[in-house]
């Protein structure tokens, strides 16, 4: 029995009731009847990107009666026709336009952290939706590292609660950070999650089931999870949340226009105000006029777009007078450890998001590092799991022997809070993409604290797996998620946007995606990005009507 009222959710966001019942996953009628705007219409808001940040903002603003056009570079997915239950066949879900990676510790892009199309990265995210802890908003004050946000946890908390209801999130009562419950009860455990809980229990560590953005029980017309394990390939079931089904349907029903296949290459600013955006669609160039512009292209493409939008008034890139655009991009250190069990585990069953342990999240003064990490189970399918094996240096017959043993292995992953560093970030490379636009170069290097954290996380994962009975453990070093690059700050010298996500440089230009995070905690970022966008929408709704943003 749900402790939360579906009625209240539906009054705020009807998306779950707008996805169809029956044999189709897409509400074609809603798409056909979509309101369409002319390029010459000065819409209230044009949004660049239809992922976690852009789609949430579009839904909130459309519902409040604003005219909204949301552009996305990728396609508008139909889960039935476009997605497959297959790893190699899911490449189109990832942003695979050319990008350059550099630095001492370069970060793989594509399937690892970059989505494409309406729904954004959440189409292929694992589904974990934890909140940040209150400490994440003031790591500089508390721990002398990272940065303080211009807002606190309490400012975001109501929006965390709203979005958890709208996804909805399922999980056990959460004892960490600001303790809270979830609207849906935890899902049953799969074999990999069972191993995690077994090991944690032996060690006396608390591990909780969830929080995952998959309804457990009736929620609108969303289908129940069938525990098929292909969360990262796009949920054909319409069980796992992504904005494609959690916010876009309601946005459409309230008059928003979604324009897929539109690659925005310039935010046009004149006399200090944004006038709209220029974009390519099927080879032709267009200009969409707008009264306000929100950029939500995530931590690589948002800085890239601002840098590409340089003009005589903004020679070093739009909003970049203080050199803040593209800086402080963060990824979480995400080593994964696999353990070998004599019994068959078959970790490919059940959703990969299941169990989380946040016992090591906060700074522990007895350690030689600051901040911490979370541990979650992950369940790589064969192609992805082969990277675990080859990372050990195995190839040829040894690699095959390890892979032949696939059903015996369980995998844990960690999310380590790597610290924000000015040097880590996005610049424009000399390479050009198919449109002739300079591609992004993302440089990333770890600091000493980063290395210590990841070592500690690996050792805890090994302990948990061994406690559960593993006879051998292997670890692969990797990174997960992206945030930062246009961080929010108290002043323009320290960041790109203010506490309400408005750029310091252009009063009617906003950034509403993961790039605004000043620190990242050890939480998967999707929920925080959506909550920030929902909060920004409240700000826009309250101020626009009073004339603050009127031309």
């Amino acid at each position: 029995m749900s402790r939360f009222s579906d009625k209240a959710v539906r009054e705020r966001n009807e998306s779950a009731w707008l996805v169809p019942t029956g044999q189709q996953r897409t509400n074609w009628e809603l798409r056909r009847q979509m309101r369409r705007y002319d390029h010459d219409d000065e819409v209230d808001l044009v949004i660049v990107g239809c992922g976690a940040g852009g789609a949430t903002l579009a839904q909130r603003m459309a519902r409040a009666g604003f005219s909204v056009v949301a552009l996305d570079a990728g396609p508008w997915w139909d889960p039935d026709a476009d997605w497959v239950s297959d790893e190699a066949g899911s490449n189109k879900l990832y942003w695979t336009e050319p990008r350059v990676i550099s630095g001492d510790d370069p970060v793989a892009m594509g399937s690892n952290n970059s989505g494409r199309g309406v729904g954004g990265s959440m189409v292929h995210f694992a589904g974990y939706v934890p909140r940040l802890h209150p400490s994440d908003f003031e790591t500089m004050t508390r721990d002398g590292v990272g940065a303080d946000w211009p807002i606190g946890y309490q400012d975001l908390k109501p929006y965390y609660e709203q979005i958890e209801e709208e996804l909805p999130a399922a999980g056990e009562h959460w004892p960490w950070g600001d303790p809270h419950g979830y609207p849906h009860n935890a899902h049953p455990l799969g074999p990999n999650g069972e191993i995690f809980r077994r090991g944690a229990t032996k060690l006396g560590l608390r591990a909780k089931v969830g929080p995952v953005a998959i309804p457990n029980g009736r929620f609108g017309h969303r289908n129940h999870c069938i525990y098929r394990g292909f969360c990262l390939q796009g949920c054909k079931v319409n069980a796992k949340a992504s904005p494609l089904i959690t916010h876009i349907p309601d946005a459409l029903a309230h008059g928003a226009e979604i324009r897929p296949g539109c690659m925005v290459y310039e935010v046009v600013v004149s006399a200090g105000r944004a006038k709209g955006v220029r974009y390519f669609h099927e080879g032709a160039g267009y200009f969409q006029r707008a009264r306000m512009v929100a950029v939500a292209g995530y931590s690589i493409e948002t800085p890239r777009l601002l840098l590409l939008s340089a003009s005589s008034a903004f020679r070093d890139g739009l909003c970049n007078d203080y050199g803040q655009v593209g800086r402080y991009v963060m990824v979480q250190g995400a080593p994964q450890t696999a353990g070998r069990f004599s019994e068959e585990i078959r970790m490919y069953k059940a959703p990969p998001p299941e169990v989380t342990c946040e016992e090591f999240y906060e700074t522990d003064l007895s350690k030689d590092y600051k901040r911490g990490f979370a541990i979650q189970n992950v369940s790589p399918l064969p192609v992805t799991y082969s990277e675990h094996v080859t990372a050990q240096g195995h190839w040829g017959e040894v690699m095959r022997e390890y892979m032949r043993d696939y059903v015996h292995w369980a995998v844990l992953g960690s999310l380590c809070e790597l610290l924000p560093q000015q040097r880590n970030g996005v610049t424009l490379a000399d390479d050009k993409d198919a449109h002739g636009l300079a591609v992004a170069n993302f440089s990333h290097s770890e600091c000493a604290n980063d290395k210590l954290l990841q070592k500690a996380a690996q050792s805890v994962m090994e302990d948990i797996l061994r406690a559960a009975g593993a006879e051998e453990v292997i670890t692969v070093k990797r990174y997960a998620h992206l945030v930062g690059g246009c961080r929010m700050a108290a002043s323009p010298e320290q960041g790109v946007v203010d506490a309400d996500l408005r750029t310091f440089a252009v009063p009617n230009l906003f950034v509403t995606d993961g790039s605004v995070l000043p620190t990242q905690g050890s939480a998967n970022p999707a929920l925080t990005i959506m909550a920030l966008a929902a909060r920004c929408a409240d700000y826009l709704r309250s101020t626009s009507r009073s004339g603050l943003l009127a031309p």
Partner: protein
Amino acid sequence: MSRRLPYPEGTTPGGKGRFEGYEVLGQRRYWDEQTRKLVMDRLENTPELKFFGLAEAETAGALLDVILGQHEEPRVPVLAMVDARLHAGQTDGWRHEAMPEDAVAWRESLLFLDDDAEQSFGRRFHACSLEERGQVVQGVQDAEGAWYSLPAKHVWSLWSRYACSAFYSHPLAWNEIGFGGPAYPRGYKVLRPGWREPWEVAEQRAGDPVPWATRVERAKRSHAVRTGTEADNR
């Protein structure tokens, strides 16, 4: 859907595997049409080479088989799969600053591989014996810093990513490792460690009942012989 498979049920690459008789495609009637079409196409239609030239294909084919330990029939057609991917320009979505685009890096690294083989054994890579090929490839994996004009570790990563993502996306390899394969609209209902769906096949290899540790040691010894690193492993 009722079409016969182009091989006997339960076939694995090189006849290796521990799930005797397991045929992942036995479930294909419970898959969605899009996925079934994609996987069956992968199985039934080996694309013609369009990216690699003749000499490149010889070297690349030999390299991929060495990395994957694919020395016996039936084989997963990884060369054709990698070629199709490079022809379509389907990258992973990034390149290292010190590396050219994937397609260029593939062509260059194949030339370097032949150079290494010529220097060590006086013939091109694909003309070398299995042991010689193993030694050349091991040399690239062991190289510190640059290998010719490319960073060795990035070359290794490029090769192994393309090789493994082709091999382990093929149903013959799924048979070998006991993977359940596509699972939509049919999901899973038996989620406990040590338990199986009725159609999943238990690990069973009558002729090879040795424990995991012994099996992996045996593979490592055989690998050491193949790559000339035997002494180091003792």
